[in-house]
């Protein structure tokens, strides 16, 4: 696992252009025609969009197998040393292929899922823009270029989460309609969801932009693989390092919905399920952790060992684990299909952050583990979302529910769900077990370097995680309340999520056959006693979760309300905003009063008194002038005397 300095290589720029622009251009026909006509012809143009995604997917596969690892540089602003730089390395080639595959598969699924939608032009344009932006983030070595993709993700997520902007379909809401807790409305519409997403992300993007600007000012380069990180951190000292990295990581923290910026992810469930699936697996939230991995990959914190860097990595480790535990607990208490999955995503992202942060003590292997977990999670989570979308479609119900009738009538769906959940939970000997075992090993090593907490957290989280996955399966297909099924079609959707879940088997094969060099380590970690014990514990939790999926108690109620984190988004920050508006209003009034009332009145008054002197009486004038003259001459005489 050597990361020797990457060579600069040549590749036809047309390939990169096609990779990023094929999906966007392919969405133009439907985007432009849809507002004018919504007939069957326009609906067929969706296929063209998916074709664009397919082209991108093919190119990512081409890059994975046929393009050498290295940097591909094309001049942009050569005078200040900024170029289009694409990097193909261990992280980006897999991540690119993952993004390409998932986006394409979900695109296919969307052909059926969205076929009756009223805003297809909007949907496909933003969906494809979303994919292209993510690919740009994945392959960019240059931070400025990466920011373009980063912003593309932001705007596209806003467009897609708020896709059903009319807020007229209760099926697209999050929370129980009309439920209230004190000052908080505990239900959210699609338009609210879109707004919350973009507004939260901007909070993190601003400091991130400044940090990127600072990096450029301090080092003169923006290429992640070329920035002299160690030198930079030494030059700016401990406080400087902490401020710079923290500002930079605000972007990933908000994008990946770590505490306390998690609420937008929960209400992002107001978007179409395809959007949730894409957003939660390969794009958007993954972009945050991916960026942290990619930067850590080249910072090589294990070689730096500066206090400032250590502080940041401890912070990320703690934040990741706490967010993960929070996410898992909220998922355990959730009653909505998609919100449960959203919270579980947050939990997984936390683990990815934590594991990557462990690289400070463990080395590059920790990042590889986090990255493999990202991949495994992406396929499993995409599958679960697609399944959730399908059953919401068939039951017209976004809350958990479904008895054995659902199981028997949607057997394939149920089996796919079962497989995806037990694989993701980390039950031996399935895919996630090996990756999780490696993560166990990483956290166990931290017992000596940090303390036992990270490992304890990880085991707890794994257990809870397994339990709510079991709950998801049980309440949807076995033990839930009775629901009415409206079965019709669904063939394309089934194909899509079956293809998606089969990728978990491909990964399993990669591990077993030792195709990737990391696989060997995973197998080794999986055969350690501790890992096996954790695996058994997880299995027990899954069984327990299946047997008793519901248990009402006080803590559960609080977790069901997501520990009231929405207080921040919906109450405190608006209150602060109103306070600022109030101050600005007072200032405005003051300004208005000064400019329109006070100053005119003042000058009017002075003017009138100046004119009042003109009484017409010469005697009076003479008195005034003579006294002024005498006074001035008197003063000057005294001054002149000295």
């Amino acid at each position: 696992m050597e990361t020797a300095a990457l060579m600069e290589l040549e590749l036809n720029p047309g390939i990169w252009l096609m990779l990023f622009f094929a999906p966007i251009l392919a969405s133009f026909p439907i985007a432009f025609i849809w507002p004018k006509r919504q007939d069957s012809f326009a609906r067929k143009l969706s296929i063209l969009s998916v074709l664009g995604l397919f082209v991108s997917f093919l190119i990512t596969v081409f890059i994975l197998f046929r393009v050498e690892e290295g940097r591909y540089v094309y001049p942009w602003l050569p005078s200040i040393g900024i170029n289009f730089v694409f990097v193909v390395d261990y992280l980006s080639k897999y991540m690119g292929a993952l993004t390409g595959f998932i986006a394409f598969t979900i695109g296919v699924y969307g052909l059926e899922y969205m076929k009756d939608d009223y805003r297809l032009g909007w949907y496909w344009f933003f969906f494809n823009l979303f994919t292209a932006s993510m690919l740009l983030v994945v392959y960019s070595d240059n931070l400025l270029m990466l920011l373009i993709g980063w912003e593309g993700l932001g705007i596209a997520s806003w467009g897609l989460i708020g896709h059903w902007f009319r807020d007229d379909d209760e099926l697209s809401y999050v929370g129980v309609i009309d439920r209230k807790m004190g000052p908080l409305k505990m239900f959210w519409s699609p338009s609210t969801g879109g707004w919350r997403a973009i507004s939260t992300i901007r909070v993190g993007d601003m400091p991130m932009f400044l940090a990127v600007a600072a990096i450029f000012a301090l080092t003169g380069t923006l290429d992640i693989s070329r920035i002299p990180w160690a030198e930079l951190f030494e030059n700016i000292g401990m406080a400087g390092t902490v401020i710079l990295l923290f500002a930079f990581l605000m972007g990933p923290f908000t994008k990946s919905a770590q505490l306390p910026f998690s609420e937008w992810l929960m209400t992002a469930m107001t978007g179409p399920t395809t959007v949730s699936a894409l957003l939660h697996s390969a794009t958007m939230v993954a972009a945050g952790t991916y960026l942290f991995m990619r930067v850590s990959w080249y910072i090589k914190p294990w070689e730096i060992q500066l206090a400032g860097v250590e502080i940041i990595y401890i912070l990320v480790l703690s934040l990741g684990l706490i967010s993960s535990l929070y996410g898992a607990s909220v998922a355990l208490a959730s009653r909505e299909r998609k919100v449960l999955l959203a919270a579980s995503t947050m939990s997984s992202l936390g683990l990815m952050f934590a594991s990557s942060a462990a690289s400070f003590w463990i080395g590059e292997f920790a990042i590889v583990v986090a990255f493999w977990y990202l991949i495994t999670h992406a396929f499993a989570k995409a599958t679960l979302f697609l399944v959730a979308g399908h059953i919401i479609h068939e039951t017209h119900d976004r809350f958990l529910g479904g008895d054995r009738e659902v199981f028997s009538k949607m057997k394939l769906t149920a089996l796919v769900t079962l497989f995806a959940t037990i694989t993701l939970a980390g039950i031996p000997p399935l895919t996630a077990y090996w990756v999780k075992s490696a993560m166990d090993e990483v956290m166990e090593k931290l017992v000596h370097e940090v303390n036992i907490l990270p490992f304890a957290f990880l085991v707890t989280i794994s257990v809870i995680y397994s339990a709510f996955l079991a709950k998801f399966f049980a309440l949807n297909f076995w033990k839930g309340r009775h629901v009415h099924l409206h079965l019709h079609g669904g063939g394309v959707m089934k194909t899509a999520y079956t293809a998606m879940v089969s990728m978990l088997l491909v990964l399993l094969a990669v591990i077993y056959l030792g195709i990737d060099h990391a696989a060997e380590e995973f197998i080794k970690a999986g055969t350690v006693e501790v890992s096996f014990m954790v695996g058994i514990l997880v299995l027990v939790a899954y069984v327990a979760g299946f047997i008793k999926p519901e248990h009402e108690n006080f803590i559960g109620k609080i977790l069901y309300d997501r520990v009231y984190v929405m207080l921040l988004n919906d109450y405190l920050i608006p209150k602060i905003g109103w306070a600022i508006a109030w101050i600005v209003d007072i200032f405005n009034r003051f300004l208005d009063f000064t400019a329109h009332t006070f100053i005119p009145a003042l000058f009017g008054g002075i003017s009138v008194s100046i004119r009042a002197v003109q009484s017409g009486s010469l005697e009076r004038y003479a008195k005034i002038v003579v006294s002024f003259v005498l006074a001035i001459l008197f003063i000057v005489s005294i001054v002149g005397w000295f």
Partner: protein
Amino acid sequence: MQFAIPAVLILALSGAFSLRFKYVGFAGALVASALMVVNNPLLLMVFVIALLNLASLDLMKGFLRGVDYTLVGLIFVSTSFAFYSQSLAFLLTMFVVASVPTYMLVMASDKEIRMEVGIKYITFMVVATILFMIGAILMVHASATSSMGLYYLAFTMLLLGLAIEVGAGPFHEWVPDVFDSADPIPVSVIASIAKFVPFVVAFKIISSTYMGGDVLILITGIIAVASMFIGNIGALTSSKPSRILAYSTVANMGYIISTLAVALYTEYVYIAFAGAMLLLLTNSLGKIGFFVGIKEDAMPKIETYILSLSFIGIPPLMGFWGKLYVLASLVYANLVWIAFFLVINSAMSVPYYIRLIRIFEDKKDFRKLAGYLVTVTAVLMLITVVPPNWIIESSRILMKYLAIGGV
């Protein structure tokens, strides 16, 4: 200048004959003025203003008919002489010669002699003349004997005399009354051609005798700024055009007095002088135009706009360049605080000049001659569309005549 004596003789004879044939007075004034013209752009502009004043007198009918031409001619002769004279005695004489004809003019009107206005005006002028002359002579004396204390006093007397003479605040009390109650045409003479001599003489005496002393700059600056504020604020709530113009004159005199503070720094005097003269030209043209309008109670529309905008200081009209040069000289001389107040005051003047436009906007019933006169003033405001380097050049040439002989 060799024609000064013939010019005065011609004026005397034509003045006498004009009692019988009034246009003899006009012809005499023209010939005398023409004799005194020098080929210098600034002097030519002053000559044009004299011609405008002479022409505008034709709008009056009254007891001074005929002699009034002679009086205006006399003012121009003294003005021209004052620009080139380097003798203290002559300069002070010109100060009186340029001032006294206005005593008579101010009382003239279409029907009767306006004695009350005359008394008011003459009282102020007498006080001003005495202060100015005593101040001037003492300055020369103090400078010769290097007596600083006396110089302070003398300088202040001269400054106060000048302020009262031209109507700067807070010695402006006569201005609104006279501008309002005298006949508009004599007022336009008082407000235009008669204003040059006091400033030219003051410039010459100050720059020839200056002995240093920041206090004097401070006093000059304070009087200048006070005058700007009194003029502009006073005009803000005035509604009669003659009153607005009276306060506008007070404000303009403030701008021009501020250049005297620069006269104490010899290297920038020519810019200050150019700015002062350009502001006086602007003021003269504007006042002639507007007072002719007041006489007729009507003005041509576009011309009204041009005159008002020039007073406000919109480029490329003449008023803009005058203020620009004054500001430049103030900044060069490190008197930024005066420049700051000048800019604020310029902004404050906008509402009342716009009010002037409003007042005359819809009034169209004027005599032909009045219309022509206003048009000429407006056109002259436009000659600075080409940046007025001529005023700087004239000013540089006239600097040679700045030093008073024997001082």
